């Protein structure tokens, strides 16, 4: 219980620190680290998700029409509600946790354990500025970009592949989709993915810089904590976000049935 409270306190302190130190991105090495993070999290992850994301849309449409005996209108609505609003950001967040979150927490824990963070401090370089700020900013941007990419592939893949498995033409699906989709759908998923990226990077940086033990065993322990807590945080934010946007707060702005 005390450890959990300490982690919450540490996480909040890190959040405030990161937010206040964002101007550090103007420094050349920090900016370089930020770009490297965007490349690693966004660009290198994108190649691996092409087939999976394309298949996802087709699978959802085929499943809806075959199992639920739905018409094309309902299938397209599900493509919009499920893939675009929910699965896209969640899939991107999971890719980021599994690829970047693990790498980031292991790298930082190893740096902390081997005294590299102390070496940075001795050079007058703040660990927050050089290690945390570019990672948090980079992961946020890359998660949002990866979300857009997965959404595009899933929707396009769903529309292109579905005519092979169900009785619906591409034109039919395309027309219905663009009749239903609204800019707020994209804004909603981008905002959510930025928050996912922020919380994933923050959690992984926190556990990486605060490993449970200052021995090589501390690295896998830090990674395990970072990954499990990031996943829980992402699912919690997703649930809260869905409740707020489709529930009490903005009900009517984003309609469940268009």
């Amino acid at each position, binding site marked *: 219980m005390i450890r959990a409270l300490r982690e919450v306190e540490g996480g909040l302190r890190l959040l405030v620190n990161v937010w206040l130190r964002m101007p550090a991105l103007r*420094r*050349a*090495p*920090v900016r370089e680290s930020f770009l490297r993070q965007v490349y690693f999290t966004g660009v290198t992850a994108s190649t691996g998700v092409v087939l999976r994301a394309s298949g996802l849309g087709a699978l959802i449409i085929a499943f809806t029409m075959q199992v639920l005996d739905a018409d094309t209108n309902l299938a397209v609505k599900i493509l919009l509600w499920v893939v675009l609003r929910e699965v896209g950001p969640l899939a991107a967040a999971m890719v980021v946790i599994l690829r970047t979150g693990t790498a980031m927490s292991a*790298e930082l824990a*190893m*740096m902390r354990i*081997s*005294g*590299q963070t*102390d*070496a*940075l401090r*001795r*050079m*007058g*370089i703040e660990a927050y500025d*050089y290690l945390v700020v570019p990672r948090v900013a980079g992961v946020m941007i890359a998660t949002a970009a990866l979300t857009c990419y997965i959404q595009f592939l899933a929707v396009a893949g769903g529309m292109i592949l579905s005519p092979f498995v169900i009785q619906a033409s591409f034109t039919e699906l395309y027309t219905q989709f663009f009749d239903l989709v609204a800019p707020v759908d994209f804004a909603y998923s981008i905002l959510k993915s930025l928050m996912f990226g922020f919380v994933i990077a923050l959690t992984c940086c926190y556990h990486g810089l605060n490993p449970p033990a200052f021995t090589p065993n501390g690295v896998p322990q830090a990674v395990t904590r970072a990954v499990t807590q990031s996943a829980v945080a992402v699912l919690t934010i997703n649930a809260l976000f869905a409740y707020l946007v489709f529930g009490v707060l903005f009900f009517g702005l984003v309609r469940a049935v268009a």
Partner: protein
Amino acid sequence: MSALALRYDLRRDGRPPVFVEVPGGATQRVRLPDSEAKARLVGAVLTTRCSAGEELELFGETVRALRRPERARLHDRIGVLTQAMGLISNLNAWENISLQAAYHGTHPVARIAKTARDALEALGADPQRFLARLPDEMDPFERKLVAFVRLLAKEPALALIDGLGEGLNREQSARAARFEAEYRARQPEGTLLFVDLAEEGSQ
């Protein structure tokens, strides 16, 4: 430069006291009686801070009395090559060398690049290939070389080198011995202090 660049006084219960004085512009080798004394001297210079029983003066200023900005200003004039070397494992040699100066914006990157290229060539390394390598891909001498070039890039008025030959074989130690001439060529008026253990000196 004739005044003292460094004056260090360490008094400990039941162990021999340590007193070191290094005139400005000199090259001096200090052999300390035990590893604790060595670690405390290096730590005090590295952090420009004194703990209990220690007194340190750098360029005539008592570090205990200094405030943070004064300490930082003094810190900028000092370069320390520790045994741990403090290299960042996910940065290549060039990024390790230029990180500090690029972060603080103290020295132009072009000047650091020239220093690095010249120093590496003088010390028998091919800059083009060497600078692209990660610390984990290097042997102990090469890692020490990166840390030394990083020290040179800082253009320190006082350079402290801790255990230069430690962890190196005979051939590598002979190459590392050329660090002194390299520092002197770039900082003719600088002060160079080598710190070793007395036991090693007597071997």
